[in-house]
């Protein structure tokens, strides 16, 4: 898999997301409090764009009428049928083994490393002094 520079880290503030289009793939990169996660932008159901989906938390319940709401901002819902996916894993809530969004490794690299490395950053200039979000896809 090739490494793609998505953008400078400052372009995806915490809680935000950015769409990367490369080699015919559409990949959405989320920033969860400084951690970056990259998922295919195609919902495994019918291909809805997760990048335009609602991001919400996870709600669980030990019994009817009791709502335990946690992990705010870490679940994305496909805009077409509202299927929920865990941004950290790409797994659906209702069938995590069989229904998953493809996940890609994402990390932050320094501009200095990028200038030397075998990265594809041809779409914008990389500055040595900045950090960048990089996705392997």
């Amino acid at each position: 898999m090739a490494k793609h520079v998505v953008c400078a880290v400052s372009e995806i503030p915490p809680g935000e997301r950015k769409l990367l289009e490369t080699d015919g793939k559409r990949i959405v990169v989320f920033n969860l409090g400084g951690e970056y996660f990259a998922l295919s932008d195609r919902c495994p159901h019918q291909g809805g764009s997760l990048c335009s989906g609602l991001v919400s938390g996870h709600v669980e319940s030990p019994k009817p009428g009791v709502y335990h709401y946690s992990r705010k901002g870490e679940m994305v819902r496909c805009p077409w049928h509202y299927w929920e996916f865990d941004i950290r894993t790409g797994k659906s809530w209702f069938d995590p083994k069989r229904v998953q969004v493809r996940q890609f490794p994402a990390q932050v690299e320094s501009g200095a490393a990028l200038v030397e490395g075998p990265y594809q950053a041809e779409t914008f200039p990389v500055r040595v002094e900045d950090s960048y979000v990089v996705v392997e896809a």
Partner: protein
Amino acid sequence: MSPSAIFQGHRPIDCDLHPMVPSMRALTPYMDEFWADQVVERNITTLDSQSWPIKAPKTIRADWRGPNGRGAETVEQLRTQVLDRFGIETGILNPLYGVQLVLNADMAVAFTRALNDWTRAEWLDKDDRLRASIVLPLQSIEASLEEIERLAGDRRFVQVLALVMGDRPLGKRDYWPIYEACERHGLAFGIHAGSAYRHPQTSVGWTSWYLEEYAANQQGFQSQLASLITEGALTQHPKLKVVLLESGVTWLPGFLWRLQKTWKGVRFETPWVTRPPAEILRDQIRLTVQPLDAPETEVERALAHLRSDDMLLWASDWPHWQFDGDDAIPPGLPERLLPKVLRENALATYARLHEGALA
């Protein structure tokens, strides 16, 4: 072939029999003096419900009617027409009399108690093969609980009974004490076709014809299933078995498809529903097979969609007219399913059937 040959070797359990109350005068011996006099003074002659009009062909099979046009009024009729004829080992009585339609809750409780005591004295006491449902006066949840406690000691009561179109969706939390009582006493919760006429029989309004109303029961069953699942009533009462009586069967997979598919998207509304609705249903919902609602050639394929051999219970639906002659097993029901449908599934559904001994 003797009439009951189709059942031989199966020791069948009939899960839906309807003893019919001849008139209100049959119930007054089971009321206290006040209500017995009220019935006479107010000239309350009958509570036959329009859900099952006596003269409608479906209500009583033609050759099961007596000279007066009525039927299913005596144990002798039940023996000749079903129990002895089909070699039934155990039959479960589900009395359908219009007690659910009564709006005065005190009157409803008095009449329902009388109905249950009538069932006990006129039917259960007269044939050891019989078991019955406790009809619930759901006009009052508190009174329903009292009625369960009053009768649960009689182990011949194996189920409690509600109508599919009653006061409110049955999953609502107010009803849960009833489900808790059912679990505690080992009673199934039976839901039978029919309306208490608190609401139109369809969600789009009142029907004009008997035909519309009979078909509309299916929508009622769908709504009750959705309520029981989404409210969490089933998952909160995992030992509860809910039996759909005279519900039809083949509508279930199509309905489930929509329920489960939509659940995937909006399950956050009901986060206590942690398993796919179909799984919950397969564990806790049972259906009687009269009527089944499929042509003979399609039955096996239709049933395959249930993905479970454990859900169906055989019933004659006596005296309702679901079949002619001795065709009491829906044509097309696969032979391999007969041991389960005719007997084993009922034993797994009704905890008290294992006891055998009478009260």
